[in-house]
């Protein structure tokens, strides 16, 4: 038994040494809608900086913020709205001088590709043809908040609220529509490119432009890892650079 323990301990130690010898690991918490664009961003960035390894954590912006508040070791935070980033800033978790908007997006109403129903205006959703509509949960998913705001403004929220199926992040709402489990759903224009089973019915104008901010998480929040902080800044610079913006544009994101 003791021999086994010693062996396990030894292999654990050697494992941690291999990690120590490896490049600096930067953890990037990014909104779900950024999944595909940021994965590509990470690959290109790593080929240019082979001493840095990017590790992604995708979820709804609200969920990511809660993880950071609860002490998750995150180096970069990219959210899909200003509100979530504002909260992170007020609570002192991000370096506010380096906060910057790096991309923009559009809210769209989508339907399953084969669907015979095609709403041409938002009020069409109130008819009985539309039983279930997917949207992000407004309490933690920015796209859900954008949706709720638009519907409240047009006076449709009260009627449509009972038809809404809340999703944990925007990609789940996309999946519900793609599987035909709901009749329509609110997602970002960039998400539509990810699935070949949905199509855009309406582009929904929002009062405020949908802007994505990015910022480094303060190093002292999770111990003083100076190397990581510098590497995190490098990644953010890359996202804002010409090369980074080209990748975002390729995935359908607009300029900030």
């Amino acid at each position: 038994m003791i021999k086994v323990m010693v062996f396990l301990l030894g292999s654990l130690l050697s494992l941690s040494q291999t990690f120590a010898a490896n490049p600096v690991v930067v953890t990037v918490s990014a909104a779900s809608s950024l999944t595909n664009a940021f994965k590509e961003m990470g690959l290109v960035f790593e080929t240019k900086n082979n001493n840095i390894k990017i590790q992604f954590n995708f979820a709804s912006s609200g969920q990511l913020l809660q993880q950071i508040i609860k002490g998750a070791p995150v180096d970069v935070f990219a959210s899909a709205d200003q509100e979530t980033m504002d909260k992170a800033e007020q609570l002192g978790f991000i370096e506010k001088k380096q906060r910057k908007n790096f991309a923009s997006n559009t809210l769209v109403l989508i339907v399953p590709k084969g669907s015979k129903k095609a709403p041409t205006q938002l009020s069409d959703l109130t008819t009985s043809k539309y039983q279930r509509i997917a949207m992000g949960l407004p309490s933690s998913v920015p796209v859900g908040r954008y949706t709720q705001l638009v519907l409240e403004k047009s006076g449709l929220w009260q009627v449509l609220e009972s038809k809404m199926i809340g999703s944990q992040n925007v990609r789940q709402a996309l999946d519900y529509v793609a599987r035909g489990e709901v009749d329509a759903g609110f997602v970002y224009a960039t998400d539509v490119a990810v699935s070949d089973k949905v199509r855009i019915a309406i582009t929904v104008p929002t009062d405020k432009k949908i802007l994505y901010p990015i910022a480094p998480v303060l190093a002292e929040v999770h111990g003083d890892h100076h190397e990581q902080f510098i590497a995190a800044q490098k990644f953010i610079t890359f996202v804002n650079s010409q090369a980074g913006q080209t990748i975002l544009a390729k995935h359908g994101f607009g300029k900030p």
Partner: protein
Amino acid sequence: MHEAWVALRLTLKIAGFATLINLVLGVGLAYFFSRKNFWGKEVLDAILTLPMVMPPTVLGYYLLVVLGQQGFIGQFLKEYFGIHLIFTWQGAVIAASIVSFPLIFKGARAAFESLEPQYEQAAKVLNVSNTAIFFRVTLPLAWRGILAGALLSFARAAGEFGATLMVAGSIQGKTQTLSIAVYEAVQAGQDDTANFLVLLTSVVCMSVLLVSGRLMPGRLARQG
């Protein structure tokens, strides 16, 4: 805290229905397994126990694919009965009952197999019908083991999260059970709500465990 009580009521409803379904199916199958031998019996037993060890997300995905709009059962139900199971509490009942089925099935099978055969034999000699033997002799003798299994299955169903979230979503008042409400509250940073929900859930789980512990067959033997 009104939402918490709504979630609790929904949780008890879903777990209650799931346990009822499992009582009928689980006890029936367990009796069959304990009395009959057939080819592939242990393989079938393993398949029926699978939900206990498989990740709930895998089950959730299976259910989504089978019961969804594009699944063959989902299409059939929609076509002929106009039933839509995804995002409904009935869908959550199905997820919960599949996940908790092995607990009642295993418990009941063990209870039936540990019975002394002479009581049933005696009844047979007295020319009692097989159905009557089952309901008047076998079931009364095995009820403690079955009930303990049912309570564990109830607790597991009440705590179901992964498969339920995938199949039924998280719709407040409709499919948002206690475990999902906790997840939701934590994600949104509502720690007060989360604290209350977590306490409530712990109390419910403790009560179920205490009751089922009292009914465990081992205790009966010790007392006897």
